């Protein structure tokens, strides 16, 4: 795991300031979507080796949900973006 995360709002911060929520690539299904879609959204998670998108909340800083693109194998962090901006770009 990364020791430092560069928050787009607050700068370089130790990982202790963040809380990890999990997969950021999930899209909340419509309320009328199938049971399977909802089951997948709430319960099913991949455990990839390599690049992932995760929500890290900067709880000790700006309290924004950030989308951290990182590699679970090399621990390299490729990008950190604001969660709302990411959500808007992805169709919200």
């Amino acid at each position, binding site marked *: *795991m*990364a*020791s*430092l995360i560069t928050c787009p709002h607050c700068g*370089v911060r*130790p990982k202790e300031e963040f*809380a990890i*929520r999990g997969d*950021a690539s999930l899209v*909340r*299904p*419509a*309320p009328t*979507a199938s*049971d399977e879609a*909802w*089951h997948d*959204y*709430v*319960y099913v998670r991949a455990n990839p080796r390599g690049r992932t998108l995760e*929500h890290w*909340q900067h*709880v000790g800083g700006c*309290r*924004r*949900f950030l989308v951290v693109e990182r590699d679970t194998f090399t*621990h390299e*962090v490729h990008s950190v973006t*604001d*969660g*709302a901006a990411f*959500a*808007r770009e992805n169709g*919200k």
Partner: protein
Amino acid sequence: MTAYRLTAGGLVDRSRALSFSFDGRPLRGFAGDTLASALIANDQLLAGRSFKYHRPRGIVSVGSSEPNALVTIGSGARSDPNTKATVAELYAGLTARSQNRWPSLGFDIGAVSDLLSPFIGAGFYYKTFMWPAQLWEKLYEPLIRRAGGLGRVVLERDPESYEKSWAHCDLLVVGGGPTGLTAALTAARAGLRVILADEDFRLGGSLLSETQAIDGAPAHVFADRVVAELQALPNVTLLPRTTVFGWYDDNVFGAVERVQKHVAEPLAKLPTERVWRVVARRALLATGAEERPLVFGGNDRPGVMMAGALRTYANRYGVAAGRSVAIFTNGSAGYQAARDLHAKGITIAAIVDGRVAAEDAAPEGTRVIRSASLIDTRGRRRVSGIVVERSGFEELVACDAVGMSGGWSPVIHLACQRGAKPVWSDTLSAFVAPDVGGGLRVAGSANGVYTLSGCLGDGAAKASAIASELGFKPTQDVMPETGEEADPSFTALWYAPGAKSKAFVDFQNDVHTKDLGLALREGFGHVEHAKRYTTSGMATDQGKLSNINAVGILAGMRGVSPADVGTTTFRPFYTPVSFGALAGTARDKHAAPTRKSPLHEWARKNGAAFVEAGPWYRSAWFPRAGEKTWRESVDREVLNVRANVGICDVSTLGKIELFGPDAAEFLNRIYCNALLKLPVGKARYGLMLREDGFVYDDGTVSRLAEEHFLVTTTTAMAGGVMSHMEYCSQVLWPELKVRFCSVSDQWAQIAIAGPKARSVLQQLIENDISDAGFPFLAAGTVTLKGGLKARLFRISFSGELAFELAVPAGFGIAVADQLMDVGRAVDICAYGVEALNVLRLEKGLPTHAEFDGRVTPDDAGLGRMVSPHKTDFVGKHLSSRYGLTAADRMQLVGLKPVDREKDIRAGAHLLREGMKPSTLNDQGWVSSACFSPVLGHHIAFAFLKSGRERYGERIVVWDKLRDQEAVAEVCDPVFVDPENARMKA
């Protein structure tokens, strides 16, 4: 008397004698000594007994690689077991004790295990004690625990203090030898922020024991000069006594500074140890190289030491480990040691050289036995001679110390801690650091550059390159003059052939060559398997000396190159770090922050007993004179609230204010009940689900203005709900125009409950709070007499006529005092969370004891709250799934013991009468219980299968934990005022 203090020389301060003790024996050393050098000066080379065979073991090395000389320093609670004597700085009054011996270091009964050694070879743990299994706990384990092991930890509370600190720098230099010092100086002169850390208490590394001159002066003078310049620069932090133990992601390093390990009386204002977390843009590993021991028969005899260690003890500390020293070498370093020792007046008994031919110059008149092997040693607690074999001829050479030199291994531990494996170099016959990118580079001996001038040059060049890379302009400095240098070459020798007795690979773990052979024969030839099977490379030294030879021997036995064997995995920590240092200040009151309500002092002066609730201290009850048990106080508080009035501190509830045109829509989506049409000036109970359909939290929602809301959360979930709301607004619905902010700390909030609540409160408030003027569930701003603005909510968690009054936090105590004053006439009382709990149970109100993450709104009897009309809210879809709507779910019911004298406790399980307790027969569980002073008996909330259909049924409350059983009647969970007449009065 063999080992002794030289009459002159060394960097010890001979004018400052220090007295210390070893195993109770008073001894003397000098300032600048390590415990090891002082012990040698006192001819105390024997330092401990080995782990498994209890063989006598002496000091071997001069630094943190020491496998043998582990001692306990200090006494009582200040004891530090397993301290390496070779790194322990001597101070006046130091007390040291040897370890792993009984009754004494000289005579140890455990040494009998050495005679049993044929039966306790590698893997004996896994074989010998397998059978019979029942003997393991009673016999084998206690036996092994007593016989084996290193020092003992003390169980007393650690009186030392510790702390952590962050540090940021452009360049972290690890190691303060010739390479590190020149690197630090080059970088510092260029303007970089530099941190230089070294394990030693004096910066200089090998320069402190170097006989070669630099710029015409002794090497240590050069070191002092560089250190002085660095010290004067504001952009440099020097950290002697600091071990950089770990390299972590993003070039963050962990280091431990032994701030006061070397003082008898530590200052209270300073920590004993400090852990540094160093964020470094670049780092340079200048950790030098470790001299390799040689594996030969009897090589663990006290007096057998590293040749370089003998040299350092003589040059830096002015001590000689022996009067007549034999050298066993396969390279030039052995000759260097021989020359330096000879120059100090120490006799060189012989130089045994494994190589056929070598150019190295031996001291004048010294006998050199080439192409030879050392096959055994003589002596018991101290070496008295060596057996040399050449061409089949054996010869006994008398000596009182042996210096061994098997070549060099770069110290590359840190560079390999993040997954990259060391790389074998045929040229260097050593593992070298892998390329780990630009963040961490390796220089000097750690990089396989063994000459002094090479190290000085490599350090400067690498630092210079880093400076340019970071945009600094390095100055072009003239390199110091070092003169002619010795050839540092060697020929790898993993195992000296012909051993006549045990040839140890790992001294600390008593692993000898035959153990490795056994491991290979039994299928554990992989280097990681061999380590576990033989324990080679384990424990406190992690094989700093031994690993390379173990790899070489395995390679030899398997007929492959060391490159094919590879190394075991490198992990932090480089050397052991105390738990205290890692915890830092985070213990006792600093272990986690505590939160205090703005009414804390009010509760305290009213005599509250406090209870920890997460980070909070909440008032639990308010005992009065004459009350002997907490129950007496709680019963009185409950009855007084029901009969008169009480006030309770509810400031710890989470409070969040929301603003914006979409605030109502937002709330409508995060609560399961309808909130869009909540009128301004009104509060409503709100229930929040998780996306999986279970209850998450409950609270109230008040509309203060059209686009302005205030929600409350439970105390426990305040942080979680805030995060949940942030997630919903930022990630799920960023299009909603809503802003919110925690106001939990802004308000002191007081519940005023009881039939006389209104009459008391009205005396403080300007506004009309009659039932007509401020009806049930009203919410809004009021003005206290005197002008203070406050917020008032007519909500009840007790079933009584009740209000919650919120005032700006700093005024909380004054207002609470005033309420108590005006309420005295009607017997007002303060009540705590215990009474609060009884009041809500009597009234049938669930809380987080019920909402345990497995409970749906319907389970808790709140099914009607879930709006069927809303198109979406968090938890909507999955709350209606199969399983969450089943008829036989556990439903919230009340319980009353049939025998009114019986009590019921939370956690008990429910069984049908006559049924045996089993998972299959389980009918449910008790979630909350209390004694109801209103009803005069215990009451409880329970989750019971299809519970709401079973009112009137008798059920067994089975409490195995307390070994109690009671029969209870299932009933409606509302025990008091089911018509809500009191609440709406």
